[in-house]
């Protein structure tokens, strides 16, 4: 993360009541792209989501997908960063092998699926047919054309298996399994040549950033003819790809990773305390956040900062009940206008944020405040020191509300160094319980949700969301996150200047998320490969 707590606010952001509003009509002058040394390049293991997307793109919808793969590794808040570090364990090898046959058997036996590559269907051994199927399959799976030697090996496996098992279809499963177990499938190989990513590597970098999946044939063709080295071609291809439905999948994957939403379907909550936490509501909360983002970015093409303040919620009946708003007329999700004078708006009014960043039986002002600082503003907060008593007092007549009880955090200087940062912000959300239901009282005492962030006062969670909407660190952090996602690693100190340059570009385009993605891809830095890690 680039910005520490102690770092001053960027120039131009005058805290307090009299600050200048951001002028969205005027393009920000940002100069030429800074030239900086690139960070390390190397292998990126497909995340579990990327694996599922890749085989779906390869073989089509409707497959029975493997349910157990090597788990993702979360590093600095992103599985996409962990993917550049994670190895594959012996159990992982077993699971990838299992997955490869689960998929290969379905594909080999299904002539309609096979016809995506070639329609030939001989009874017995037929090398020409095997090659006709395996060559385009390997190209799409490996994001590059197979060499003749690699293709010979695959065809040979098919011949051997057909001889042993009797039929072409049974035999074909083995080279398909080999395609899916190959390191060329399981890892994105992005090592570059002479300090630049190759056009094929660029194609993968683009598609995994925009689609959370592999390039299509059209993009591979642009790589094979070398034209992706041209930033204008990359820009045109990125525009084309953003118009494809897979771009919605890519947006969802990025924000699922960034916001840590994958925990929601199994998030434990005490249902005796939280009767609205019904089966499936965790998954609904995840869908609300992702569907809302999809709408904001692709349907409304709105300012990404409106994520903080929008009164349009994409919810189902369970969430409507939790929020106390009219339910959609039909089963499933529908865009619903939240009351204009209600207490709830934007991401921070959603059950996803409010329930993840809470305990199973209560709220957590520390977790909620930490989320604001570390996830939304990209600031670092160190873990608590050891040998310190971290307990919070029980409710009592003297300390009925959480604000009273966490006062102890703030009285001890050792605790206060971090809790004076997290807790005052987290207290803004005390009017929402551990699953996000609105309340005004705790232990029959009125909850005080007021506070301040970086010297700017707010009245409650809504006010804080507005402060965040206008806070310059919010788009800077979103930009940094997308950049980290593209690079698959932490940014170097040098690259901080690049992140600022991209952030200025985002501001200059009215904070349209799609323009940031295109900007990242068209930048020269996107094509520069550092030392092999």
């Amino acid at each position, binding site marked *: 993360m680039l910005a520490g707590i102690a770092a001053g606010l960027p120039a131009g952001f005058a805290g307090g009541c009299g600050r200048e509003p951001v002028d969205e009509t005027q393009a920000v002058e940002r100069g030429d792209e800074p030239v900086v040394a690139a960070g390390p390049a*190397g*292998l990126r293991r497909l995340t579990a989501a990327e694996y599922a997307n890749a085989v779906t793109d390869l073989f089509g919808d409707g497959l029975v997908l493997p*349910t*157990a793969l*090597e*788990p993702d*590794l979360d*590093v600095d808040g992103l599985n996409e960063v*962990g993917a550049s*570090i*994670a*190895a*594959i*364990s*012996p*159990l992982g*090898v*077993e*699971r990838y*092998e*299992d997955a490869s*046959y*689960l998929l290969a*058997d379905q594909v080999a*036996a299904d002539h309609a699926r096979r016809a995506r590559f070639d329609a030939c269907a001989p009874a017995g051994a037929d090398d020409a047919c095997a090659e006709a199927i395996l060559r385009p399959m390997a190209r799409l799976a490996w994001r590059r054309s197979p060499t003749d030697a690699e293709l010979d*090996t695959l065809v040979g*496996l098919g011949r*051997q*298996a057909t001889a*042993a*098992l009797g*039929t072409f279809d*049974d035999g074909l*499963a083995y080279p398909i*399994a*080999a395609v899916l*177990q*190959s*390191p*060329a499938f399981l890892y994105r*190989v992005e*090592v570059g040549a002479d300090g630049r990513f190759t056009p094929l590597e660029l194609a993968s970098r683009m598609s995994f950033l925009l689609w959370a999946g592999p390039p299509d044939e059209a993009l591979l063709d642009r790589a094979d003819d070398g034209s992706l080295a041209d930033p204008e071609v990359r820009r045109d291809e990125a525009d084309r790809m953003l118009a494809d439905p897979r771009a919605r999948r890519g947006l969802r994957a990025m924000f699922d990773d960034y916001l840590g939403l994958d925990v929601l379907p*199994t998030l*434990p*909550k*005490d249902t005796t305390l939280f009767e609205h936490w019904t089966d499936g509501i965790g998954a609904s909360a995840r869908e609300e956040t992702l569907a809302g983002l999809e709408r904001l970015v692709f349907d409304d093409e709105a300012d990404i900062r409106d994520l903080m303040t929008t009164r349009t919620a994409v919810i189902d009946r369970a969430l409507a009940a939790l929020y106390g708003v009219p339910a959609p007329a039909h089963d499933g999700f529908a865009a619903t206008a939240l009351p204009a004078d209600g207490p709830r708006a934007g991401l921070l009014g959603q059950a996803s944020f409010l329930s993840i960043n809470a*305990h*199973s*039986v209560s709220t957590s002002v520390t977790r909620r405040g930490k989320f604001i600082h570390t996830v939304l503003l990209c600031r670092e907060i160190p*873990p608590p020191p*050891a*040998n*310190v*008593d971290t*307990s*919070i007092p*029980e409710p009592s007549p003297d300390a009925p509300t959480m604000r009273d009880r966490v006062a102890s955090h703030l009285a001890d200087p050792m605790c206060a160094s971090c809790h004076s940062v997290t807790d005052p912000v987290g207290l803004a959300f005390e009017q929402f319980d551990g699953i996000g239901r609105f309340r005004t009282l705790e232990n029959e005492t009125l909850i005080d949700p007021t506070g301040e962030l970086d010297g700017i006062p707010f009245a409650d969670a809504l006010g804080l969301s507005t402060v965040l909407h206008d806070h310059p660190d919010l788009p800077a952090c979103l930009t940094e996150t997308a950049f980290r996602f593209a690079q698959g690693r932490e940014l170097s100190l040098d690259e901080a200047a690049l992140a600022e340059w991209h952030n200025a570009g985002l501001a200059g385009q009215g904070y349209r998320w799609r323009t940031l993605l295109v900007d990242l891809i068209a930048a020269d830095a996107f094509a520069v490969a550092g*030392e*092999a*890690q």
Partner: protein
Amino acid sequence: MRGLIGRRTVLRGLLGGSAVALGLPALEAMMSPRAFAVGGLFPKRFGLFFWGNGTLPGDPDKPLENPDRWTPIGEGSGSAWTLSEQLAPLAAHKDVLAVVTGLSMKLPNTYPHGSGAAGILSGAVLSKDSMDGFTAATVDQVIAAEIGTTTLFGSLQTAATDTLGLSFSGENARNPAEFDPYALFQRLFGDTFVLPGGEGLVSPTLGLRRSVLDAVMNDVGALQPRLGAADKARLDQHLTGLRELEQRLAKLEEDPPDLASCDRPPEPLEAYPDDGDYPQIEERNAAMADMLAMALACDQTRTFAHFLTEPITNARYPGTTDGNHNLTHDEPNPQPQVNAITIQNMGHFARLISALRAVPEGAGTLLDSCAVLGTTETSYGRIHSKDNLAIVIAGSAGGKLVQDVHIHSPSQENVSKVMLTLIRSMDIVAGEWGTDAAHTTDGLSALEV
């Protein structure tokens, strides 16, 4: 692996028309090439039983508010010591236990729970990249690298709650735990499992799968020269797994080892859904314990790491009103609910030891050849203390470790000494363990016979 070989072989049998031939009972007991109990000597086995969030070793300055409920009463062996309140569920196994108290993890405690776990299990600090990233191999993997080379599985990692566990082969190279009992059963005792006296599997698919693995290994080898050192090491990990799997497929074609006590354990349920907000810790632990015992008895592996829970686990235990981690921090002293959880944890450890002792082997039981280390990442969880750590060892590792003893270190000795003694108890020649302040060249001599 979720029933990899079993389900797959069934699928291949259906689609490929080639059924798996399970071996018929035969009279080759004396002919088995893999019989190992020559002269009554059984192989050494190592196990780890880990639970999260510590114990209650008390605060000497506040004996009434926060009394010690962990440390056994009295020091020495036999009648010289008795179990504490929290260790009481292990009473039936006191004769095979060595409890060590007064040890400390000597590395900096920079990340609550994480530093303790990494320091105790690997003798090293956490990776800066991740709270879950260790920088060195854990003790189970160091042992497995030596004693796990001839078995179907080099080692096993299991859990009784939804955790990936903390078994690492090297930096950031986690061996994720299987926390689904049914999946573990399919992996160990599914369609490819053959009881002693049976014959190895005969199926063309085994050879074909090995051919595919050969091709994949070639591809990995061809990729490596293009990479930097860190990525080469990652692919070395991958190659290790590929080789292990290929060797396992080859072994499936051999006759199983001749082991009198090997049997299929009870088949677990297909699912253990949470009971309201309470995971079925007891049931899942019992199922895993029975399978681990038979995995050792059938010589499918000689090393396991079993994670009842993980550091910072917030699992809810029966009879408690909040998650485990929340309670360690928020329950007022003397923390009766935290105390109850620790007592339950020791009951789950006892269940594992019972499963190992229920298997007769030679004149004794399976546990005799084992050393099973029970530990947790902190002592007093409320303050993440790394002093007065919990060390409970069951089994003598074939007569190498003392039993029925409470050893107390008055000087907060380095907990790494225990790890070095355990490694050596497996007949592994090891000169040292741990890095920096955790480094030691000495074992804990009081633990050694």
